[in-house]
């Protein structure tokens, strides 16, 4: 009888299984390093030698589809393949969880069969773990071992690899333990699977765990078992887990006609690459062209001077970046005395200490450190450790450095490991700053991770791309998307060179069209300086020049520009002796780190204490001064703090004879709480508010989230509902409102679709909700008569009269008005006091629910700690005249934004920062319009995207850059 052969071609590996009769006689698992066809053929040759004869063959797997189509070998969808194998070998299974290189899948076997795969946004899992291991500079195996020794886990955004990275990087920089980070990464994978995939269905009963990562990683297994609360016997980890799909494919092959393995091999080797992929032009047509290019860029290199002979002053600049640490020592005549560039490997402080020691020793007493400055993510820590003279914002450092190379510079773009930063320069000052959003970040390190995945160093990888004939088009969105575009290209037969060149061009396009959002290259400027480590890659540099059609300046120290700028800053600004740490102090320098949760407020910041041996200590991770043990800045200049206190006061706290009503404080309720509190209390209900938002509240409701790309406020709502249900209220009230209250300053007065109809989604996806305990009437508050009638009908069982309802509504509106009036009065006070005190004022503009500290992550406190006064859009929009905008102005909350922006433009000491929830579709429209209002008035526009990620480091850089730019602009006036 013929044998059965299943081949599973995944995104990173090829798995094969041979079944003879009832026995699995062969199985294998090999990485394919993107050489899909070759790897498959090699496997087949091996099998053919060992077990010659006739085979029925089926291919499965995400990367197998194309191969099967072109070779005409049978295909079975991989979840289906798993299902077949489960039925045969583990028929008692209730749920199967499979993690692969790029996909995550859940198969519910019992209680209504259902098969689920991750959506296109949720980043890969195996690939995600690989990427994180690279970030920690350890192997996946080491990471697994470390994870088992963890003492705690940190919250890490689980939705997408790029987000997770922005969570992890600061932890690393703050000196959190690798053990704990490793475990946190695994926990993030588990959370992603449970929330992103299960979506309301509980994973319970006997659970089968499949796929490579779950087979090899014990830490991951442990995290799954603990999270799902599975007993030992109920968590099944089969020995053949990695090859499980290939076994399923082999079983499927039963229905396929058998043929000699040789003919299968012939079919596959004859399979052609398809013409589906789009390709671009080569970066360089010839070696000569490349040589000329290199020569042109050499011309802008700095000169070196020999540290072995040099005697005199020098200035130290340190750029403690997200993934790399850069140090430079510059002489007063701008020669490079010494420099160092190194991957962080998780511990930037050690690097700085060691390298600084090394440098001072090289100087043999001839070289004197006359000044020092630190910039970058790790600025605070490094500055306090080495007692640097200055700490400066990254953007300022980069601008200083660029000025040195071209005093006429009008545009700077810096692509680093994790960020893309662009500045436009006007009249010698930074005019606008564009930073990438959390979503499309990670570009530089993405190329690096990718190179390693291909088994290559980054230098070699980029060299490969220089002469590629057909660079692939990979799109220009987030790296997770790029990742799968790369996979697709590989499947279609693109070579390493084409992919390397394609990646370079993607990064450039991402920067130009997504971050800068230029519609043509001419918008950028005439004198462009490019920098950042990523531009040292000639393929990226060339792509940039091709895309912009301009020759640009890339200094030879492109990767060191931040450090160089810092050194220049120290040189310009030092007065008197430098305070920089001495060699003796360095020799005896030690430190210890410890982390704990601050319980100063509900934010529960994870605070890191680093103690230096001289007794000084450094605290990081805290959002406000409280965590650092300092007295908090007074809230008197902060409308957010005021509103947070004032809003719940709308509930007067009547005991309530009619029963207890639960109001979920999220989304629209952040605006309408006073109204509904007044309404229900006046009718004799006791009003119960949902638990305060927190990450753990989010996790509580995570299993009922239906769409993982909805905004964080919406997803948090699920937790609020759970908390009210646990509270045992008689019913939860949450109206559906297509129309918001008409404030008579826009064409229409809609709510956004999410705010308007989220109750429908909640009810459909939380099995604890029903018509009795979840009241969600459709009302339009502008129409009193119909609203009264609707509410009267909804609460029929309480036998209220229409008059009672009407009066209750009136009471509600009165409380809403009084709340608005108080907020506005407070805003007037802040405005006046701050102006008197000469403070800068920021309108932190978003939506009413951005008041939630779990959503704004305490950005208001960050602002006050920077000595700014904070107002909100709803507290001042009425001070502005009505504005006419280009877009269709049809949402109530958004109309406030435009007026708030107009108001900010009317005062010299007021600026605006727009808060945008990730995934908010409507803000794609408002942000551009608010920006254009600000820019038309010559004001800086700053936008902060917020999500579940809790990384204020980036936000801080953004805000400080903004302040530096405002300051510069003031100086030039």
């Amino acid at each position, binding site marked *: 009888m013929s044998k059965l052969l299943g081949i599973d071609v995944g995104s990173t590996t090829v798995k094969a299984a041979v079944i003879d009769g009832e026995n699995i006689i062969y199985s294998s698992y090999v990485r394919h390093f993107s050489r899909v066809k070759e790897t498959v053929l090699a496997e087949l040759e091996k099998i053919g030698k060992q077990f010659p004869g006739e085979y029925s063959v089926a291919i499965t797997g*995400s990367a197998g*589809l*194309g191969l099967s189509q072109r070779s005409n070998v049978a295909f079975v*969808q991989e*979840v*289906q393949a798993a299902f077949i194998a489960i039925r045969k070998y583990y028929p008692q299974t209730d749920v199967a969880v499979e993690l692969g290189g790029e996909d995550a899948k859940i198969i519910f076997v019992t209680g209504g*069969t*259902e*098969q689920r*795969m991750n*959506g*296109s946004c949720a980043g890969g899992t195996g690939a995600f773990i690989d990427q994180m291991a690279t970030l920690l500079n350890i192997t996946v195996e080491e990471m697994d071992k470390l994870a088992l020794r963890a003492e705690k886990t940190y919250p890490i955004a689980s939705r997408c690899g790029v987000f997770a990275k922005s969570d992890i990087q600061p932890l690393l920089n703050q000196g959190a333990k690798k053990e704990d980070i490793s475990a946190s990464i695994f926990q993030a994978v588990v959370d992603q699977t449970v929330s992103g995939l299960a979506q*309301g269905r509980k994973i319970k009963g006997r659970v089968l765990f499949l796929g490579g990562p779950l087979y090899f990683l014990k830490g991951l297994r442990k995290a799954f078992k603990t999270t799902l609360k599975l007993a030992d016997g109920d968590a099944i980890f089969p020995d053949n887990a990695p090859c499980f799909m290939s076994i399923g494919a082999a079983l499927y092959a039963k229905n396929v006609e058998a043929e000699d393995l040789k003919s299968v091999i012939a079919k596959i080797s004859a399979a052609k690459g398809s013409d589906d992929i*789009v390709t671009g032009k080569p970066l360089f047509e010839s070696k000569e062209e490349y040589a000329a290019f290199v020569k042109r860029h050499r011309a802008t290199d700095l000169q070196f001077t020999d540290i072995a002979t040099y005697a005199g002053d020098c200035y130290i600049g340190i750029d403690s970046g997200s993934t790399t640490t850069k140090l430079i020592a510059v002489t007063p005549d701008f020669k490079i005395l010494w420099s160092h560039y190194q991957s962080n490997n998780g511990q930037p402080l050690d690097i700085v200490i060691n390298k600084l020691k090394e440098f001072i020793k090289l100087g043999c007493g001839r070289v004197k450190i006359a000044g020092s400055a630190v910039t970058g993510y790790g600025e605070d820590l490094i500055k306090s450790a080495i007692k640097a003279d200055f700490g400066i914002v990254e953007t300022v450092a980069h601008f200083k450095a660029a000025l040195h190379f071209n005093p006429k510079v009008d545009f700077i773009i810096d692509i680093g490991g994790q960020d893309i930063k662009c500045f436009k320069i006007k009249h010698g000052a930074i005019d606008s700053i564009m930073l990438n959003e959390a979503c*499309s970040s990670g570009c530089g390190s993405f190329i690096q991770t990718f190179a390693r995945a291909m088994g290559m160093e980054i230098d070699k990888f980029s060299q490969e791309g220089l002469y590629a004939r057909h660079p692939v088009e990979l799109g*220009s*969105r*987030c790296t997770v998307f*790029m990742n*799968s575009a790369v996979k697709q290209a590989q*499947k279609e037969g693109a070579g390493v060179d084409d992919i390397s060149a394609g990646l370079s061009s993607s990064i450039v396009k991402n920067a130009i069209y997504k971050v800068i*959002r230029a*519609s*043509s290259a001419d918008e950028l400027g005439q004198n462009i300086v490019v920098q950042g480590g990523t531009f040292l890659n000639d393929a990226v540099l060339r792509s940039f020049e091709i895309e912009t059609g301009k020759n640009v300046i890339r200094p030879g120290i492109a990767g060191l520009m931040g450090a160089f700028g810092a050194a220049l800053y120290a040189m310009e600004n030092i007065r008197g002796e430098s305070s920089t740490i001495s060699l003796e102090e360095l020799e005896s320098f030690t430190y210890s780190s410890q982390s704990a949760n601050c319980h100063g407020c509900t934010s529960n910041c994870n605070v890191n204490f680093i103690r230096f041996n001289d007794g000084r200590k450094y605290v990081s991770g805290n959002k406000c001064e409280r965590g650092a043990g300092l007295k908090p800045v007074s809230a008197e200049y902060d409308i957010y703090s005021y509103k947070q206190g004032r809003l719940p006061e709308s509930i007067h706290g009547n005991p309530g004879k009619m029963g207890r009503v639960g109001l979920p404080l999220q989304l629209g309720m952040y605006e309408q709480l006073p109204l509904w509190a007044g309404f229900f209390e006046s009718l004799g209900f006791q009003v119960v508010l949902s638990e305060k938002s927190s990450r753990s509240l989010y996790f509580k409701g995570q299993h009922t989230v239906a*769409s993982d*790309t*909805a905004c964080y406020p919406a997803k948090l709502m699920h937790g609020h509902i759970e908390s009210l249900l646990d509270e045992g209220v008689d019913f939860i009230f949450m109206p*559906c409102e*297509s*129309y918001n209250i008409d404030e008579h300053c826009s*064409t229409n007065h809609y*709510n*956004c*679709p*999410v705010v*308007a*109809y989220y109750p*429908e*989604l909640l009810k*459909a*996806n939380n099995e604890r909700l029903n018509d009795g305990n979840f009241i969600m009437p*459709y009302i*339009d508050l502008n*129409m009193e*008569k*119909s609203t009264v009638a609707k509410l009267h009908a909804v609460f029929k069982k309480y036998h209220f009269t229409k008059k009672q309802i009407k009066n209750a509504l009136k009471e509600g509106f009165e409380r809403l008005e009084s709340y608005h009036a108080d907020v506005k009065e407070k805003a007037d006070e802040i405005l006046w006091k701050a102006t008197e005190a000469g403070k800068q004022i920021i309108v932190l503009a978003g939506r009413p629910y951005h008041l939630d500290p779990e959503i704004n992550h305490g950005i208001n406190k960050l602002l006050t700690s920077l000595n700014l006064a904070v107002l909100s859009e709803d507290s001042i929009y*009425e001070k*502005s*005249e*009505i*504005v*006419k*905008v*280009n877009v*269709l102005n*049809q949402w109530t909350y958004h109309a406030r934004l435009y007026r708030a922006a107009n108001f900010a433009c009317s005062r010299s000491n007021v600026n605006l920062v727009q808060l945008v929830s990730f995934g908010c*579709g409507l803000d*794609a*429209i408002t942000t551009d319009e608010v920006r254009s209002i600000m820019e*038309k008035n010559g004001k800086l526009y700053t936008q902060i995207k917020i999500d579940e990620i809790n990384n204020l480091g980036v936000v801080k850089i953004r805000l400080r850059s903004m302040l530096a730019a405002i300051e510069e602009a003031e100086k030039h006036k």
Partner: protein
Amino acid sequence: MEEIRDYTNDYPKWDKSMKQTHKILVPDMLPWHFLIIQEVLRLEGYDIEVLKNENRTVIDEGLKHVHNDTCYPCLCVVGQYIDALKSGKYDLEHTALMITQTGGGCRASNYMPLIRKAIKAEFPQVPVVSVNFSGLEKDSSFEIGAKLFIKLAYSIIYGDSIMWCYNQTKPYEVEAGAADSARDMAVNYVVDKFKRGGYAKYKKINRHIISLFAKVERRQEQKVKVGVVGEIYVKYSRLGNNNLEKFLLSENCEPVVPALLDFVLYCIVNVVNDGKLYGHSKSKAFIYNLVYKLLHRMQKNIIKEFIKEGTFMPVHDFEHLRRCADKVLNQGVKMGEGWLIPAEMAALAETGVPNIVCTQPFGCLPNHIAGKGSIRTLKELYKNENIVAVDYDPSATKVNQENRIKLMLATARENN
């Protein structure tokens, strides 16, 4: 405060006289419907052209000119416009762009200003003209009188019948291309009716359309039927959905794509519903209800034609769709495609098409609720309901989308 601060940029307006001087470009969504509409408007004296450019540069231009987070349909539409304007085929001084606005609460009504913004730098002279019934863009609206409105409604109805019959014929045709020639004949027949008069005899015309397709020789075999629902543009447009219908055909399925008229009726009914739910303008609701009744009666009569002839499954009855919606969520969910999506998914399940691709642009807000959010309820209502939600996006790969659809199909075959 009565003062007004005006931030609007100047843009070229559309005025009626341009009918004589300008060519109007229309983005493609439903090739056969739009072909009929194009001919109808040409007969009215408009120089209309439905854009057919679908190459990769369309998407690239879209990416360059539209905000990253804006929905994919907007990106496709803007891409088609810019690519066309750059092609050199059109006299830029005498070209206008046309787009529809529903005035609903999702982003789609903002495509108009976004298009203006996108073309502002390179094509400042090109006016954008709005087709809407909500009183928007008063200075650049396309005038549609009662008579033209009725003609357009007929065009949609005929387009629907042609699409509906074609999808039920193509998978089974014995002679390759037979369904396509039936479609060509049907389209020519309809256009001819508009040219020579008699276009209003919709029963007769529908009878003829059905008979043209019924004549095509069909193989007797059972294929998996797959419903396509979702956001209006990616549901219908092959540029938007990576040619989903073709993919389904290649997977040996019968695509079931609900009629465009249902979306029109949905928009009309929403005004009626607003009257009922909130007591909004009674007179407006009355007129809309009248139009609705009229169109729905036509739909009923067409369904009768389908049943009488007997070859094809008839189009959905809109009243049935409304009742289906009521089982899942409130008809108050009216932004974007709102309640129409679960209504169609339920109606498909009830008519023997439980396998469904729910298409949506990545990050589509109404779809969070009406699409993904309602799947659980639908699965409880209909045991076999087998839905895959697919996101469309410039960077979402075809392989990724197709793999998910294949998973749905595997389950479908399992259930069969």
